[in-house]
């Protein structure tokens, strides 16, 4: 079974200092890399950029694009896609293409800390 570990923390607290903010996650990353060395059991480890960099696409007949993160808690996080695009607009276009099935898509730029490699099925 593949598992995703989603890391939550208080962004306002982290942003209260402008020290490199990867710190908290980096410590966790070291632990995960010790436990899951490069043997096809460690997938991507990524650091999301602050929510200030987020854009949200709300699905609908005409998907609507909003600046800022998705703040409601009515829906649950069901999936993650990582794509490579030259511009945010290209990523938004990709999300619009996915928006047919409903729900909300939040786009966050990210820094890849570890691309990792999962077992091929």
């Amino acid at each position, binding site marked *: 079974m593949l598992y995703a570990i989603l890391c939550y923390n208080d962004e306002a607290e982290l*942003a209260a200092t402008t020290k490199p903010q990867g710190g908290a996650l980096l410590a966790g990353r070291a632990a995960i890399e010790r436990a899951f060395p490069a043997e096809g059991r460690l997938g991507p480890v990524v650091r999301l950029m602050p929510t200030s960099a987020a854009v949200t696409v709300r699905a609908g007949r005409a998907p609507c694009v909003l600046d800022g993160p998705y703040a409601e808690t009515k829906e649950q996080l069901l999936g993650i896609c990582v794509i490579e695009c030259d511009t*945010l607009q290209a990523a*938004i276009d990709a999300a619009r293409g996915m928006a047919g099935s409903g729900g909300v898509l939040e786009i966050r730029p990210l820094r890849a800390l570890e691309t990792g490699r999962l077992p091929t099925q």
Partner: protein
Amino acid sequence: MSDLRWIDTAFAAARPQAMAALLRYFRDLDTAEDAFQEACLRALQRWPKDGPPRDPTAWLILVGRNSALDEARRQSRNEPLPDEDVFADSEDQQTELADRLDSSHYRDDILRLLFICCHPELPATQQIALALRIVSGLTVKEIAHAFLVSEAAMEQRITRAKRLIGKTRVSFETPGAPERVERLGVVAATIYLLFNEGYSASGGDVPVRAPLCDEAIRLARLLVRLFPGEPEILGLTALLLLQHSRTPARVDADGAIVLLEDQDRAQWNREWIDEGLALLDKAARHAQPGPYQLQASIAAAHARAERAADTDWVLIEQHYADLERLQPSPVVKLNRAVATAKARGAEFALPMLELLAEPLDGYFHYHGVKGWLLMQLGRADEARVAFNQAIALAHTAAEATQIRIYLDQLTRKY
């Protein structure tokens, strides 16, 4: 004694919003400050025992408000002393207050708080000092240290500034769209000044005062959170992050400023660069370019170049041309001339300086750039004259040193 740093962090994070809410409630800066102070004291008594409340900001607002009301009642002798339950920091009331604190309500409060500090009659440095005191909660001692003045002098400055704004009437109604845009513009300008005060360090021997830059970025990020769809606020934040990313490489071991083209780019902070580029990209989507976005785009062009020689000067020249259209100041024109020289050659840039001779006659960089262009065109005698004028106008040892290096090059060449 357990580690209480988390409480300080919570106070710092809550401060702008809590102060803004208390100011709206009491409509008086000193009362709001005292109320927040009192709430923090009570938090220091309660939180270590009880643990953090569910919403620390709501707790501080509620307790601050109630204690100030209580204080007012106590001072009026006809009123009986309040019941203990006036300090209503029960979970129910916190929840109710937290529900009312969603962003649409408090963002105008915070903007108003910042705007009040940016009173047009206050000199820029006082606006900055006041914002640092009121919004960021830096102590007078810390601010005095940042501005390299005595604590007493800073105390006096802040008191005077407060007295001035106390006399001004600021609307506590929810601002309309044009008023909001105007306030945002004023506040953004002060945040930019605050950053520059740290980045260019106009006085003293310390070339960079990073805490001021950090604080400016923190406030800019706060504005982005409150007004996520404002491209110029995104642009400002991107600009500050991109410039600050160079800080580790900007000063050499002797404490002298290192020029952009000589900096060790491996030392640039990648995390801030990536965030700055992402914010700029987000701003560009609105297709409403403005001065902050353009300056950020220029900084981004430098950030994208792995080596100084890789810099896309043609793009930078274009950005400066656009910036000049929006902000036709002599300094922007001078910067554009530098970009033109880098992109196309000194012979195209030198004529651009002619109109600047008068407005920038007393400006170090004007004469430095003029000498640099003349030197490239082989006009050594004229270059020497310009460099000597520049040295006479240099503010710092680093500026003078840079010009001496050029003069040495001239002597060796000709």
